[in-house]
């Protein structure tokens, strides 16, 4: 057995074991921690499968951001209702048959996928052939922005609707005061001054690298959200009850830039959602990154807006 296969088998076993422990655990907190761990193993699996773009997205969004959101939700539950609020009740009886059915479905799809013959001239091949014409080197970015732009646009709309839904559910309640880490603590201050600029640098790098190498707006937005989460947790950004004009503009900038350029193409006599050049791709990607970062940071802070806190 080769070392690579051994690693793959270990990853596969870890995935199954962790997913079982996530849904059968006795404490909500350890379930969340194991879910984050699960996301990291998924990221490793994607990179073993030769999909670094997905691995980056899973590590940043699946494990990192979702984990942070879940831990924040856990803390609010404990703050609001004590230990009773996070107690795990009896499992629904339907869980086992549903799990069995889903497992069978996945197994059947997997078996069918193993037997599928490679079709010449499939969509993937044609993307790779046509890619040089777009000025992009990374086929994933090409698919996201050029070939399946509408899908990406709708994904952004879903993200915006999710935030609006969270706002609607949280009502007009004043943004919850968090127990914050004092940023005057020497180590926390050092973390802030070293990591916040670094996250911006890494996000910019991921965005620019996304045209030719693994990376792109979604990963960059997730890393930038990390900066936002850090600023919210240390109290550098304070949750506010109303969204200012700048916040609103930043929230919709991704959608707006995408729609304007995509529909503007029609005025130039091209098909809808075509990108008129690499500059347009950079522009749309930058706007998407900012939108994602602002949306996710607001979700994390459970607030309408954010304002810098003067100390």
């Amino acid at each position, binding site marked *: 057995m080769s070392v690579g296969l051994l690693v793959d088998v270990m990853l596969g076993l870890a995935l199954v074991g962790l997913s079982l422990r996530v849904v059968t655990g006795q404490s909500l*907190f*350890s379930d969340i921690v194991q879910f984050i761990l699960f996301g990291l193993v998924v990221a490793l699996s994607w990179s073993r499968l030769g999909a670094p773009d997905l691995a980056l997205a899973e590590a940043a969004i699946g494990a990192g951001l979702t984990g942070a959101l879940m831990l924040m939700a856990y803390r609010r539950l404990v703050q609001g209702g004590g230990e009773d609020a996070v107690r795990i009740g009896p499992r629904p009886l339907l869980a086992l048959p549903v799990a069995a059915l889903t497992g069978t479905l996945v197994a059947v799809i997997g078996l069918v996928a193993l037997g599928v013959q490679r079709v010449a001239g499939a969509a993937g091949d044609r993307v790779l052939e046509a890619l040089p014409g777009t000025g992009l080197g990374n086929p994933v970015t090409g698919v996201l922005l050029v070939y399946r732009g509408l899908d990406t646009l709708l994904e952004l709309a879903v993200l915006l609707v999710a935030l609006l839904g969270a706002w609607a559910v949280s009502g007009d309640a004043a943004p919850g005061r968090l127990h914050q880490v004092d940023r005057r603590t020497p*180590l*926390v201050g*050092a*973390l802030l001054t070293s*990591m916040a600029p670094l996250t911006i640098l890494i996000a910019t790098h991921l965005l620019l690298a996304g045209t030719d190498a693994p990376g792109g707006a979604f990963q960059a937005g997730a890393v930038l959200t990390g900066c936002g989460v850090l600023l919210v947790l240390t109290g550098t950004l304070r949750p506010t009850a109303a969204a200012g004009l700048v916040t609103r503009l930043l929230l919709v900038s991704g959608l707006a830039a995408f729609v304007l350029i995509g529909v503007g193409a029609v005025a130039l006599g091209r098909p809808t959602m075509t990108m008129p050049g690499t500059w347009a791709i950079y522009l749309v990607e930058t706007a998407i990154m900012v939108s994602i970062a602002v949306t996710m940071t607001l979700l994390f802070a459970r607030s309408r807006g954010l304002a810098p806190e003067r100390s």
Partner: protein
Amino acid sequence: MSPAEAVGLALVVVGCGFYGAGTVGLLRFPDVYSRLHALTKADNQGLFFVVLGLGVLAGHWRVALLLIAIWLVGLVSAAVSAHLIARHARRSDRRHTSRTARP
């Protein structure tokens, strides 16, 4: 196997040894402070050796320097999170002698 490859592999193995020791410490030490001690000390050292080994295996200065940068970022985050966990443990004055994880 070239000498550089042998050195790189040996460094990675040494790093894994440190990780193993840190994990044993995390599982076996009695309270939160000594567990943190095991984790931060051993794992930072382990990451250093792994990074050094991978840098040697990559055989490229740019890759090696980027890996060192990753190690430095890991050092900062490990130091801060260990500090915050330890401070929280001391303030809440809770004896973390049980094996179960607690927030």
